[in-house]
């Protein structure tokens, strides 16, 4: 299921390309006071090559965010371990940029400062950092919103500031948890293209959680499907052999796109049905 993919325009990861992220039998549990331990993720392995764009889809609450947290080093797996560029991860994953599912902007900084700080802590001079941050604010369509505080922005605007904050640092590994969730379809596509362009520039590895299957297929090299929890596992791993560069709008007309979409959708649908089977009358 882990076939190497050939791409036309994106830098094709050589078959032997180094692994950016590897999860080795990672399992995750949550201990709760007065309740049995909740085994969220069963031992799971996943490899992401340098320069590979992997989308993760799965029913709500299956463990996608949890998996990203483990990859980021924010959550200690109950079992197994994570390696990053070959070295076992201990503590935080310094190579990764993480766009959280929740709002994570610093409320006491303006939007622009929130982006600039990501550079400043790396040692960039403030003036340079601000200039670059402003560039990125423009790229995400918020050039004129730099001096707003987060609470003065709409949900979608905040998400885009977060996106700029992560991308401006140009990390080697991108972990993105529903980055385009609160955006309209059109803006989603613009942001998707932005992300793809950036990704194509250098060989970033991307782990991309989304609920939009179209988006997953349109953007990624591989779509990974997680089963419903508890003890979620990876139950499907589809290489997306569509040509690159892809045009986000046109690609949906490609028959191959539809085949893939149907395959993945069917597996996903069955999985979701399982979650509800216990709770919902059909």
């Amino acid at each position: 299921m882990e076939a190497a993919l050939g791409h036309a325009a994106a830098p094709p990861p050589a078959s032997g390309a180094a692994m950016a992220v590897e999860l080795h039998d990672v399992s995750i549990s949550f201990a709760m006071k007065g309740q049995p331990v909740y085994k969220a993720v069963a031992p799971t392995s996943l490899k992401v090559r340098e320069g590979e764009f992997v989308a993760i889809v799965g029913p709500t609450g299956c463990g996608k965010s949890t998996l990203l947290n483990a990859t980021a080093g924010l959550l200690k797996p109950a079992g197994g371990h994570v390696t990053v560029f070959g070295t076992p991860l201990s503590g935080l994953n310094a190579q990764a940029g993480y766009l959280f599912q929740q709002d994570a902007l610093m409320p006491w900084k303006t939007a622009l400062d929130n982006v600039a700080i990501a550079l400043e802590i790396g040692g960039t001079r403030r003036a340079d950092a601000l200039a670059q941050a402003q560039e990125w604010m423009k790229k995400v369509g918020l050039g004129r919103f730099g001096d707003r505080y987060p609470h003065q922005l709409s949900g979608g605007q905040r998400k885009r500031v977060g996106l700029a904050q992560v991308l401006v640092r140009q990390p080697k590994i991108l972990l993105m948890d529903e980055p385009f969730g609160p955006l309209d379809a059109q803006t989603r596509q613009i942001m998707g293209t932005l992300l793809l362009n950036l990704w194509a520039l250098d060989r970033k590895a991307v782990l991309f959680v989304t609920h939009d299957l179209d988006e997953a297929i349109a953007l990624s090299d591989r779509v990974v499907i997680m089963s419903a929890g508890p003890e979620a596992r990876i139950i499907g791993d589809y290489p997306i052999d569509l040509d690159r560069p892809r045009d986000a709008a046109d690609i949906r007309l490609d028959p191959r796109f539809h085949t893939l979409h149907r395959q993945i959708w069917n597996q996903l649908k069955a999985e979701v049905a399982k979650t509800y089977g216990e709770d919902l009358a059909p």
Partner: protein
Amino acid sequence: MKLHPVKLLLLQLLVALVALAIWQVGATVPIGDTYLLPEFFFSKPGDVLVRVYTLFATGVIWKHLWITLSETVLAFLIGSVAGVVFGFWFARQPTVAAVFDPYVKMFNALPRVVLAPIFMLWLGLGIWSKVALGVTLVFFIVFFNVYQGVKEVSPVVLANARMMGMNERQLFRNVYWPSALSWMFSSLHTAVGFALVGAVVGEYLGSAAGLGYLIHQAEGVFDVTGVFAGMVILAAFVLVIDWAVTRIENRLLVWRPQSASEQN
């Protein structure tokens, strides 16, 4: 909902007037044959105001005010800075916090009047022993609040900052500090008062000048008017310091949404 400043001031004056009226009546009109606020213990508002006026008119007060002010400001600054530093340190070093926790609480419970002689022994009778007394009050108030403030930092914002690669110092500057600010300022409003209390109690227990000295002197000769005049000056005084704290607070907390209660 927001009150017009002039209206607010008028209302505040009204409260003051009502309070003075109650005071006056309580001190001069007997109920049965006891006074609610016997003059021996409470003096009379008019007398007190006259005394306050004399104190300022004769200029006697300035020297004392100046000394008390210095002590208060120093106690406030040293106490808050120490409170902030230790608050952060303890919050970031759970082991240190766990080990020293009982000792901190024990020290907080020592009555300051008993500590006063020790401070005088170590620091002499000058302003520093009073500052030390104020510091022991201010420190704990600020300390506990900053400690809690740091622990209340939003986990997601913190995780995000750490993922950006912030080191401990950067986290402090960009996350913990701004996040703990509203806790800190809440404690500072209490602390201002306690800094002054510490200074005055210190002077009261042993000194050559200051408002506490004045009050003690008046008390020694049963000059209640003098005692109350001292307290009135003291009270006016704390408003000035608190006003300064509030200005800094508003400056540093521009980023916050209007609080829910102000909105409606």
